[in-house]
C-alpha cells in the first residue's frame, strides 16, 4: 500500500504536478505563521529576567537548529527508500533537502554565535550544542560536495543516500561524544534555554516559528525538487511539451 503510494508519487510527471499545486499552500502557511511568530516573539512575549531582550534571537535559532536535525532525518529516510525501492522522487528529495538543511544549519550557527556575544562575551564558544551543529554542517557539506562531484545524477543520488544513512547512524554517536567532551573540558556554566519551566507566553511563539520553518522547508524543497526533475527529465516528452506550451 505504502509502496504503491510511493510508486505513484515516484512518477516524475505526477510529482511535478502535485508539487506545483502544493507549493502555494505551503508558502501561504509559511508567511502567515512567520508573521504571527515574529509578532508574538518580538512584541508579545515578555523580556527574560536574566537575558533581557537578547534572548529573542532564540525564536530563529532554536527552530533552525531543530530543522537542521529534522531535515537530516528526512534526507536519510528518503535515501533509504530510494536505495531499497529505487524511486526517482525520493532520490530527488535527498539532494533537494541537503541544501536547505545546510542553510538551516548555517542559520542556527550564525544566530547561535550572535546570541553568544551578549551571553558569553565572545562570538564563539566550544559549547556542546554549537560544536555538534558545526559537525552537522560538515556532514551536510560533504553530501553536497559528493553530489556535485559525481556526474551521473542518478549514481550521485544513490551515493549520497548511502552517505546520509551513514551520517544518520553516526549523528547520535557524535552528539553523545561531543557532550562527553564538553562536560569534561568546560563544566556546565551556561544556563540553557528550553527548560521545562519556560513560560507559555515565551514558548508559544517558539512553536509557531517551528511550524513556520517546517512549512518553509516544505515549500522550498518542493521547488528545488521540481527544478531538479525538469533538469533530469529534460529530454522526456512531457517536459518538452510543457516547455513548448509555456513558450506560447
Amino acid at each position: 500500500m505504502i509502496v504503491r503510494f510511493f510508486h505513484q508519487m515516484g512518477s516524475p510527471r505526477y510529482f511535478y504536478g502535485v508539487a506545483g499545486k502544493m507549493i502555494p499552500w505551503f508558502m501561504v502557511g509559511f508567511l502567515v505563521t512567520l508573521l504571527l511568530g515574529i509578532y508574538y516573539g518580538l512584541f508579545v512575549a515578555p523580556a527574560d529576567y536574566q537575558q533581557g531582550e537578547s534572548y529573542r534571537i532564540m525564536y530563529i535559532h532554536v527552530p533552525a537548529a531543530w530543522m537542521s536535525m529534522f531535515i537530516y532525518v528526512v534526507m536519510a529516510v528518503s535515501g533509504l527508500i530510494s536505495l531499497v525501492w529505487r524511486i526517482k522522487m525520493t532520490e530527488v528529495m535527498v539532494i533537494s533537502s541537503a541544501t536547505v538543511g545546510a542553510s538551516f544549519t548555517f542559520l542556527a550557527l550564525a544566530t547561535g554565535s550572535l546570541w553568544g556575544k551578549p551571553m558569553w562575551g565572545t562570538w564563539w564558544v566550544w559549547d556542546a550544542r554549537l560544536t555538534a551543529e558545526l559537525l552537522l554542517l560538515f556532514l551536510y557539506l560533504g553530501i553536497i560536495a559528493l553530489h556535485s562531484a559525481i556526474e551521473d545524477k542518478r549514481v550521485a543520488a544513490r551515493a549520497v543516500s548511502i552517505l546520509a544513512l551513514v551520517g544518520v547512524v553516526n549523528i547520535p554517536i557524535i552528539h553523545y561524544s561531543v557532550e562527553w567532551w564538553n562536560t569534561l573540558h568546560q563544566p556546565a556554566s551556561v544556563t540553557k534555554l528550553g527548560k521545562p519551566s519556560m513560560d507559555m507566553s515565551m514558548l508559544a511563539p517558539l512553536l509557531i516559528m517551528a511550524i513556520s520553518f517546517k512549512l518553509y522547508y516544505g515549500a522550498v524543497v518542493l521547488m528545488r525538487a521540481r527544478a531538479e526533475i525538469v533538469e533530469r527529465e529534460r529530454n522526456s516528452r512531457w517536459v518538452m511539451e510543457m516547455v513548448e506550451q509555456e513558450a506560447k
Partner: protein
Amino acid sequence: MSTLSLTSAFTLLLKRDLVLAYRRRAEMVNPMLFFVLVTAMFPLGIGNDPKLIEAVGPGVVWVAALLAALLSLDSMFRSDFDDGSLEQFMLSAHPVSILVLAKVLAHWLVTGLPLFVVAPLLAVLLNVPSSAIPTLMLTLVLGTPVLSLIGSVGVALTVGLRRGGVILSLLVLPLYVPVLIFATDAVKTAIVGIPTTAQLSILSAMLVGSLVLAPMATAASLRISLS
C-alpha cells in the same frame, strides 16, 4: 557456497593484499613518516614550553594519527579500481562485504599498525608520562581500525572520482570525531591516574559496531561507484 570456501576467499584476499604491500614495501613507511612529521610540527608551532606540550600531547598524537589514517585511505581501493580487480571482486561468488573486510584488515595491518609502533616514541617526544603510554597504545589499537572501517565507506564512495581526495576528507573527518574524543580523553584520564574503562569500552563498542556495519555500507558504495 560453503563456509570453508568463504573463509578461504577471505584469507586469500588478505594474503594477496599483504603480498602486494610487501612487494612495494618502500611505500609502507610513508604513513608512519607522515605521522612522525606532523607530530614534530606541533611543538614548532606552539613553542617549546614543556607544560604546554604536555597538555596538548595526547591530542596531538591522535590528531596526527587521524591525518595519517586519512592520507593512507586513498590507497585502499585505488589500484584495484584502476586495473579492474575491483570489478572482479564485485562479481565474485562471495558476499562483497566479506571481501571488503579482508581488504580493510590488510590495509589496517599495513598502514595502521606501523602508527602503533612509533606511537610510544612520539609520546615521549611530547612529554606524555610513561604511565599513560599503555593506554595510548590501547586506544590506538582499538581506534585506528575504526578509522579504517569508517574510512572505507568514504573511499568506496569517492574511488571513481578524479579529485576524490579533498571530498574524502570532508566526508570522513566529521565521522572520526567520536573516536578522537574518546581516545584522547582516555589518555588524558590515564595521565591523571583515573581508570579509563568507560572510554575504552566505548571505543570497543565503536569497533564492534563499525565491524558489523561498515563493510556492508562499503560494499554498497563500491557497487554504486562502479556502476
